């Protein structure tokens, strides 16, 4: 699924093979997360599925602290898994590219909170160092 590939033939993807553990990049190419799980639309669990039931669809990519659960088993609580809506996906390939920036993602609320409440209160923490500012100005002007 990509902007380039626009033909009308169906395409198939396997979750393990093409989606899980793939790097997710935002619209600027900045790494955002790794796909740890996929959220599906509702499946009637524990009851018979009528033959004409439409198939479930992927609603979101899930990322979260799965290292320990992969080693020791189990899975992290649902509240710890962070969602990237499926509609935000622009391209699926070696990496998964999003059509939105990382600041719009819930994934980075911890990073934003630390920036605003901890780093921002350190003297000098609310602006880039002078040397880097000058460098970026030089690069922008050349």
């Amino acid at each position: 699924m990509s902007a380039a590939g626009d033909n009308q033939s169906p395409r198939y993807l396997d979750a393990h093979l093409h989606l899980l553990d793939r790097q997710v990049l935002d619209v600027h190419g900045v790494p955002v997360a790794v796909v740890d799980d996929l959220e599906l639309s509702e499946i009637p669990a524990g009851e018979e599925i009528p033959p004409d039931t439409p198939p479930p669809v992927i609603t979101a990519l899930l990322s979260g602290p799965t290292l320990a659960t992969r080693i020791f088993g189990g899975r992290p609580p649902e509240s710890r898994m962070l969602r990237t809506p499926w509609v935000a996906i622009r391209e699926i390939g070696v990496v998964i590219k999003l059509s939105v920036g990382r600041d719009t993602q819930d994934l980075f609320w911890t990073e934003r909170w630390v920036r605003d409440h901890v780093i921002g209160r350190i003297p000098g923490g609310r602006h880039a160092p002078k040397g880097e500012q000058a460098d970026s100005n030089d690069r922008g002007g050349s």
Partner: protein
Amino acid sequence: MIITELLGARVYGPDFLGFVSDVRFRFDTESIGQPARLHGIMVSPHARSSSLGFERSGVRSPWPIAALVHWRHRGSFLARWGDIERIDVKRIQLRQGFERGSPELP
């Protein structure tokens, strides 16, 4: 439901058939924004782990790994969504007369 609840689940017809080694999704076209619909589950009689795509893509090298993976996933098949009768916790029941589809990616 999340996908890891399906992966590794035990699959039964009338009898035990194997484990879900992967889940296949279908896009109707390659256009952006298509919903990814569940097409079916890959059932492997002997292994829960992923087969790294060897048996689905015709890749034959490096041959020692390909041979090992083919052997571990011998008898794998695709059970389509329409053939799934019930999904319980780590257990999937297929309908009577289900079809064994080819595991190869189209």
